[in-house]
């Protein structure tokens, strides 16, 4: 009798051990990922991500997610985990991709490749830390390129740091510096506070802001009197402080807001940063002056491109679009068409009269504005860390695309005119060549 009970308890022990082992195995399957069959089915039925010309940026092959274009728009596309998107559009549009729907982007692969190559060359040559470029189709707001540096290949995403995976043009915020002057002058012209020929006394330094004020200074040597056109040409902070002197703070802040600063970009589903405009209660004379040359506010490269697009697009703001069929977005008139046209002429002069060697191409009408912004480190403006910025569009007389460039932390020749402007020029050269656009601007002969 005793032997019988002993045998039965042995059987029960073995059975219990087997069930426990099964439990451990099942838990491990859940913990380490779903059974292979399910994963394969989920992956295989997932929709593709394609560029505007139909070239595939992400698709499923043999139960695996592959990215045939490798680093091209890698940060925008993002990557897949075991069964769902982890970052970028793979995560943002996970639900519709899971349902087998394809995602068509507005990105143009050749413009994207041009932008990435120009950015990579600029950042590497000038020993920068990172950078971003955005190219927008002027009339529609379709994003043709959104490049980040360093590059990221989603096929091999585990070997990259989170920094490399960051979709910088949409997420990195920075002070846009002097590029903002083009937009503020546009607003001042629109309100009748200045004209292109208005003359201002412009010493190299000027105290602004009364009791709690500060001295602002200029970096580029210039004559003691400048017109508004020359204020842009010499990128004079002192000149800008004069131009906005009679601009009511609320109005000027509202213009910056209308340009898209300090508010969310109306681009559905995709993650973007908002940037910052100081609250109106902080806007004293000094804040108004510093905002006129892009200090004390922040923006993403995408926002900067969308804002400059207002000048290119006859004063009309169109919100950027990245996914085809995701809605028309916002449209609003910020400037009168004639003001925008005047600004295009002024910004063309900035390149042709000031930085043609850096941003101009013989025979083509390019327009834009440079910026070199000190970076805030430990609540103080650093004297060794800079953001090199450029925003512009081309062709200046009838713009088709708007471009914004930002490079952070360059060690060599960090000025906007030395680093960001040549990136813009290289991008413009590639795009104009692809359009096979004939030169339109007659070359200036000696003596002219």
């Amino acid at each position, binding site marked *: 009798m005793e032997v019988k009970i002993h045998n039965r308890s042995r059987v029960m022990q073995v059975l219990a051990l087997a069930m426990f082992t099964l439990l451990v195995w099942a838990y491990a399957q859940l913990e380490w990922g779903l059974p292979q069959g399910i994963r394969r089915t989920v992956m295989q039925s997932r929709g593709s991500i394609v560029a505007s010309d139909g070239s595939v940026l992400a698709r499923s092959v043999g139960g695996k997610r592959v990215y045939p274009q490798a680093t091209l728009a890698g940060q925008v596309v993002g990557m897949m985990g075991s069964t769902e998107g982890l970052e970028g559009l793979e995560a943002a549009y996970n639900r519709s991709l899971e349902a087998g729907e394809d995602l068509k982007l507005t990105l143009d692969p050749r413009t994207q*490749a041009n932008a990435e190559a120009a950015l990579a060359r600029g950042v590497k040559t000038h020993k920068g830390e990172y950078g971003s470029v955005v190219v927008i189709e002027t009339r529609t707001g379709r994003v043709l390129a959104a490049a980040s540096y360093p590059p990221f290949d989603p096929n091999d995403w585990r070997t990259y740091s989170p920094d490399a995976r960051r979709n910088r043009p949409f997420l990195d915020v920075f002070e846009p510096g002097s590029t903002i002057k083009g937009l503020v002058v546009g607003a001042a012209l629109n309100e009748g506070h200045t004209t292109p020929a208005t003359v201002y006394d412009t010493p190299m330094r000027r105290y602004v802001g009364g009791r709690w004020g500060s001295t602002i200074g200029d970096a580029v040597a210039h004559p003691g009197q400048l017109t508004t056109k020359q204020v842009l040409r010499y990128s004079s902070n002192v000149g800008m402080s004069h131009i906005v002197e009679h601009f009511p703070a609320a109005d000027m802040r509202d213009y910056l807001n209308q340009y898209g600063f300090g508010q969310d970009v109306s681009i559905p589903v995709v993650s973007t940063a908002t940037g910052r405009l100081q609250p109106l209660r902080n806007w004293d004379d000094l804040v108004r002056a510093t905002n006129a040359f892009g200090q004390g506010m922040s923006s993403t490269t995408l926002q900067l491109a969308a804002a400059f697009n207002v000048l290119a697009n006859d004063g009309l703001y169109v919100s950027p679009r990245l996914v085809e069929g995701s809605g028309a977005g916002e449209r609003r008139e910020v400037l009168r068409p004639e003001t925008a046209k005047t600004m295009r002429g002024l910004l063309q002069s900035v390149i042709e009269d000031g930085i043609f060697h850096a941003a101009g191409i013989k025979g083509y009408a390019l327009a834009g504005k440079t910026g070199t912004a000190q970076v805030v480190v430990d609540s103080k403006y650093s004297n060794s860390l800079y953001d090199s910025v450029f925003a512009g569009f081309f062709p200046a007389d009838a713009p088709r695309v708007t471009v914004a460039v930002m490079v952070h932390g360059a060690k060599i020749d960090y000025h906007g005119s030395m680093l960001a402007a040549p990136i813009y020029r290289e991008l413009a050269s590639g795009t104009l060549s692809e359009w096979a656009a004939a030169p339109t601007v007659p070359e200036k002969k000696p003596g002219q």
Partner: protein
Amino acid sequence: MIARLTLDTSGATWRGRAMRYVLIYVLLALVLVGVRYVTHDVRVQLRAAADREEVLIAQRDTLEVQVQALTTPQRIREWAFAQGMRRFAEAPKVTADLPTIPLPASLSSSPPDSSNSGLRPAPVPQTALEVRTQWK
């Protein structure tokens, strides 16, 4: 007169019926087994074909991805620059006035007019541009 229905429930009748039904069932079973025997390899072949199709689809997808990976805009761009491509926008351009080239006298610029017999219109000079493109 009312016909009277008689139910034949004799043993011989039941035996006859049972034999007929059994025979029909056996025949049907034989037909089914025969059909199954004749078509026994169809399913195997279908499965093999499905497997082959799966392999071929996987190969096609892999090749498509390889082609796409080898023809990315970055690679084409790098290759073109390595071959000495110069961008159109940056290439030096020269301008020149195009001389008008007179048409040969034997050719007329408009089709002959039958109503105006005897008088041929003077040949109109035509500007023709010949473009030679050179890669590199």
